[in-house]
């Protein structure tokens, strides 16, 4: 069996499982086949567009999105890591070694937390769901961090239920919005690593 000859059949999903496996192993070593497969896969996919497609039932979209939301549990969004890279919040640096633990445990949490941020005419609204209640004696605190400058406290919230937080103050262009866990009553400067941060 000459594996080079199997590219078209592989692109059409027309190989038997053992042939497909052998071809995939071959792909790892054959640049020529990888290039040809990229081309022919694109063409094979064009055949998908040749069929008359009735609209799928609306429940399919809902079902996919619900399953996706339920599944995404142990992924630490990159945005959290970016905070570190950007060297924001000098005050948080002292707590950095504790913070790593926090991120990991958040990452393994079985709960999916969803944030959405809308900034309109300099005013920001943060919608949060799936965030567990802040521990006893703690609160969640939102921050607005200008592109150059210190983090400004932008409001407190308790978590535990879906919440809409209207951030206090205005959000200058290119600012970052972040959320940290702080002691009850809130603080003037962040002391922990953000559990959420997003550029605006």
């Amino acid at each position, binding site marked *: 069996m000459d594996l080079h000859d199997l590219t078209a059949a592989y692109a059409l999903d027309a190989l038997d499982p053992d042939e497909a496996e052998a071809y995939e192993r071959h792909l790892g070593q054959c640049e020529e086949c990888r290039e040809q497969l990229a081309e022919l896969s*694109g063409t094979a996919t064009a055949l*998908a567009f040749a069929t008359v497609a009735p609209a799928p039932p609306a429940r399919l979209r809902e*079902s996919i999105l619900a399953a996706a939301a339920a599944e995404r549990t142990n992924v630490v969004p990159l945005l959290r890591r970016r905070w570190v890279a950007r060297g924001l919040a000098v005050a948080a640096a002292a707590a950095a070694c504790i913070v790593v633990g926090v991120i990991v445990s958040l990452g393994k949490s079985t709960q999916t937390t969803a944030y959405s941020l809308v900034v309109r*005419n300099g005013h920001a609204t943060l919608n949060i769901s799936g965030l567990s209640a802040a521990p006893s004696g703690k609160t969640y605190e939102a921050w607005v961090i200008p592109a150059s400058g210190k983090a400004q406290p932008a409001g407190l919230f308790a978590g535990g239920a879906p919440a809409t937080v209207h951030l206090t103050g205005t959000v200058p262009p290119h600012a970052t919005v972040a959320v940290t866990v702080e002691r009850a009553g809130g603080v003037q400067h962040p002391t922990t690593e953000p559990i959420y941060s997003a550029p605006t």
Partner: protein
Amino acid sequence: MNAVGADSSEPPDRFDSLEPAVLGERISDAVSRQLAHLSDEALVALAARSEQTALAELYDRYGRTAYGLALRVLRDQALAEDAVQEAFLTVWRTASRFVPERGKASTWILTLVHRRAVYTVRREQRRRTDSLELAAEPSVEGVEEDAWLRLQRERVQAALRLLPDAQREALELAYYGGFSQSELAERLGQPLGTIKSRMFTGLSRLREQLGEPGTEISWTSTT
């Protein structure tokens, strides 16, 4: 600053006083409007960061084509829905491993759908009781289709019609019928080498007919 595609008929103070549920809806509308301008590949990158609205946008772009394809292969609505769902969840789970240099996101997504559908049709052995003839393609009548999809369909169908019958038959039986090359060789009474060469030549010609990479099918924003 106006980070979202705001509805100009809605003054900001009114926006702030909305009920949370309405506000949430408004936010997802606004996010969707923003995502509508992103490329498929950018959406996959966002999905890799757990952005569910990006997955929703990918579904809105390709869900219909995906479902049509799965239905064509499986001829069963429930199985087709399962295949599409599994494929989109695979997108969600493995988005971080998608490499744009190796191909377009739409190709990746529809390949996942097709592979899943073919896997299922073989497992179900549904075709064992069917003749080799493909089910008639669903009629266009009564199907509401957007202009872009209709254009793509007509374009690919026209390119298919230009192929010699034997090559077109091999491509259609493999892609829409889920038959493997060895099954086709057996059922068409042809040597395996002949089937392989029909698939390869047919697909290569189809590629030429569909034009250079710059004119390939890709989603374009209509907004």
